[in-house]
């Protein structure tokens, strides 16, 4: 209990407390209470805050959608035994076991617009060089690509565990009734897998929402020259560690916290309705 209070309640309470102050420079420096000013500043800020909210959503939803589809495909592939399956499993899992910062550094080198490997490969097949991480338009899609590359294996593992736990009987019954592979997947396997898929979505969504290492390693403070990769997390980090605006940063984090709570609540609400 004391552990919970110390590690969760105190930092949360302190962050809420700071969010109502104009703390700047150092939290040891004197500061004043400013009521909801920081919240008003954040919620009316259309140049940094709201674009960051939008990018956080695009990144999370975009990455999650691709990861679910690809993860399901890989799980289905690995479900039934086949020759060389052990090797395939190892290769598929590799990106997931590497350190995120190392992965980000690696992709930064690969995607370097002038001396990177990606553009060399494109050159061999006659496609002009792409800006990848260096243009405001292509940065977010490229980052989503790296996230998908890294975390699809995690979704695949969770889904594979679910598939392996399924009973074979419904599938066999459908087969006897003459259902083809797609029909069996869509009408039998997928509905049975729904709880597992929801768990996978929850786990990955929380993780994707708070992505920091990949974005910061690739684009640095502020998410690049045009803030093109600035999600709420990066924005809050920039506000606190670069701008030293602890009050405003705390308010942004509390708003972020409320958004996470809200989305989790919506997800579970949906799940409860379905189980009814």
């Amino acid at each position, binding site marked *: 209990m004391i552990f919970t209070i110390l590690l969760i309640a105190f930092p949360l309470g302190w962050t809420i407390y700071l969010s109502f102050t104009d703390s700047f420079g*150092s939290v040891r420096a004197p500061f004043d209470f400013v009521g909801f000013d920081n919240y008003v500043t954040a919620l009316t800020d259309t140049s940094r805050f709201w674009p960051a909210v939008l990018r956080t959503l695009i990144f999370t939803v975009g990455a999650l959608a691709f990861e679910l589809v690809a993860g399901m495909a890989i799980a289905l592939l690995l479900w039934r035994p086949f020759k060389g399956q052990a090797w395939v499993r190892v290769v598929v899992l590799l990106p997931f076991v590497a350190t995120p910062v190392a992965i980000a550094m690696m992709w930064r080198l690969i995607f370097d*617009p*002038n001396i990177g490997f990606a553009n060399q490969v494109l050159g061999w097949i006659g496609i002009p060089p792409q800006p990848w991480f260096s243009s405001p338009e292509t940065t977010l899609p490229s980052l989503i690509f790296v996230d998908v590359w890294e975390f699809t294996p995690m979704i695949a593992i969770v889904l594979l565990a679910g598939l392996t736990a399924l009973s074979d009987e419904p599938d066999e019954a459908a087969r006897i009734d003459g259902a083809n592979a797609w029909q069996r997947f869509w009408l039998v396997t997928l509905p049975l897998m729904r709880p597992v898929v929801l768990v996978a979505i929850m786990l990955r969504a929380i993780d994707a929402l708070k992505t920091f290492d990949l974005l910061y390693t690739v684009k640095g403070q502020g998410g690049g020259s045009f803030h093109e990769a600035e999600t709420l*997390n990066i924005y809050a980090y920039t506000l606190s560690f*670069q701008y030293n605006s*602890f009050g405003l940063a*705390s308010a942004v984090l509390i708003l972020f916290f409320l958004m*996470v709570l809200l989305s989790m609540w919506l997800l579970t609400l949906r799940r409860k309705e379905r189980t009814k």
Partner: protein
Amino acid sequence: MRIAAVATATLLTAGMVSACSSGGGGDKAESTTLNVTLANHVWTDSLKKRIPDFEKETGLKVVVNQLSEDQLADSYKVKLNAGSADVDVMMYRPLQVGKLFAASHYFVDLTKHVSDDATWNWSDFQPGPVSITTYQDKVVGVPIVTENEILYYRKDLLQKAGLSVPTTMDELQAAAKKIKEQNPGVAGFVSRTQASAGVTQFSGFLYSFGGDWMDADGTSTVGTDAAKKAYAYYGGLLRDYGPAQVNTDMSWPEAMALFQQGKAAFETDASSLYDNLANPEKSKVSDQVGYAAFPAGPAGSKPYNVAAWALGINSASKNQDNAWKFIKWATSPEMTLALQEEGNSGARTSVWENPAATAKFPAELVKAIAENGKNGIGYDRPLVLSVAQAREIVGAPFVAAITGGDSNAAADKANTEFQSLLDSEKK
């Protein structure tokens, strides 16, 4: 409840701004263990080898905590904010955090310490760097590494184009153009392009075009005609004669990588980084690198000439006397000479006057540094409390110019934003 717990954990890991509870601080008064926090830097590598000598001499045990630049800044902000005593000696960037840290009372006042010992000789330190480690007439740090902005060039490419080393902005532009046209795949000019990281390298151009960040009254001057010309020139140089793929994310490692790979003819960056280009293990073109003083603009040649790093003492340290012993040892005339002989530009005048100190530097580089020293400006970014925020604002116009946008309009916008930042700090 479970969701609440998960979400709480999310918030905590997401970036706890404030949960910087005291990190230890169990030092007893004047402990014999000295905690020294240093940045990853060639100076650190040179000094670390010698720390056993200091330990033998004093009987103290030195624990070195070494971090990258960004990690170092974050670690200080967390630890010093919390009043932690587990940092005694701190290596810091005076231009970036000096004012903020001094205003937050994170530093011990060293004024008495520095003037106490005539043989250690504080007056030997160059005035520019000293002005940056002094806050409200109190000395808060001792400068250790200095640097200024020089022009790196490729001797072979210049020779092939039949050109001499550019001494003015116009010549630099013409040479970059000619070399890029002559050598497909080679950029005429590279430098930092990222809005924040590029500010320091843009500063030399700004000053040489007659501009500055603000005037003596603290009014923003990034919207003046001189500043607009500098923004357009720097951005245009990179847009027209830079690498084939315009990239607005380049800090020094990315820009230097192009030069190292033989894909650039000119680069302007800090003199302290020369080893990255001159060392055959790092650079494919090490035998062709030339060094020149910063080219002159309409207002002359005005590169920055600054103290990049300094040593200070944490005001919460319980080991301040020993910390000072360490700083005195690390910045003594003998040590500065020894470190400079290994290629670290120090801040002591006497050492720069000693031929032994510069024997290992390329002769042309020493000449360029000396030339820059004559006209150098003592800061390379706006000296405000919120330096990081200011850098993003004043860097935006050259990013606009690099990407072909309207840099004049961007300069006007930056001027308004920078002015409101300056006003907010006056309160």
